[in-house]
């Protein structure tokens, strides 16, 4: 394996890891927004019935 392979591998791993972490944060945001919407719906539903 030549030097270029190690360098390309290092840079690929760095940006893959950063991308995976940012995607994870994106998924976390979507899930939290869905949970928030469910709770708000529940509150609205109960308040309308009262």
């Amino acid at each position, binding site marked *: 394996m030549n030097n270029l392979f*190690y360098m390309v591998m290092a840079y690929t791993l760095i940006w893959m890891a950063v991308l995976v972490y940012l995607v994870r944060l994106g998924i976390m945001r979507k899930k939290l927004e869905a949970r928030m919407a469910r709770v708000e719906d529940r509150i609205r539903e109960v308040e309308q019935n009262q």
Partner: protein
Amino acid sequence: MSKTFDTTLAIAAVGSIVTALVAVFLFAPVEKTMGIVQKIFYFHLGSAAAAFLAFTTVFAASVLFLVSRQARWDILAVSAAEAGVLFCTLVLVTGPLWARPVWGHWWVWDPRLTTTLILWFLYVGYLVIRQAVPGGRGEIAAAVYGILAYADVPIVYFSIRWWRGMHPQVIQKGGGGLAPGMAEPLLISITAFAVLLLVMIRERAVLGNLEARVEHLEQFVREEYQ
């Protein structure tokens, strides 16, 4: 803070990363003996600087949490610890990728390498404690641990001065061991990683606050409406 701030920060991160890549690949000279593999060093050191900055944030936020008991400091500490572990992992991965062609070994039990590996385990431990211990006790335990774990950061930094090892000493008194034309790309890379770290911590902290609000509302609904 506003959405404009987040957008500006994200644009700054992308801009500084592109600038760093251009500086490293188009302007930094190719090292004479190591060749192109030496270019790993710019982002390896950038990752290390980002990890140190993140763990310093964990330390400061943990102290502030213990003093004030405000949840926002705990959320900041967890956010910084997550990003710190990510950058520390990158240091431990890119280091061996540079070492294999240069030293002929993936890993040696050099003081700098060993203390960095310990640092990684310490902050993975922080995240485990934060998750595993439930309720307010988990926040306090993590804050105390976050302060104690920080003791390894100066040990990692000074390890190449205190003990003999194979790891190169880049930052030295009176200049350093860098060839002309390498210092500027290195500084740009470190800045780019610092901005990227800021984006990650900020985004994670926003989500941490949102999570706390959702949990609070869910608890309210459980108690009031069921």
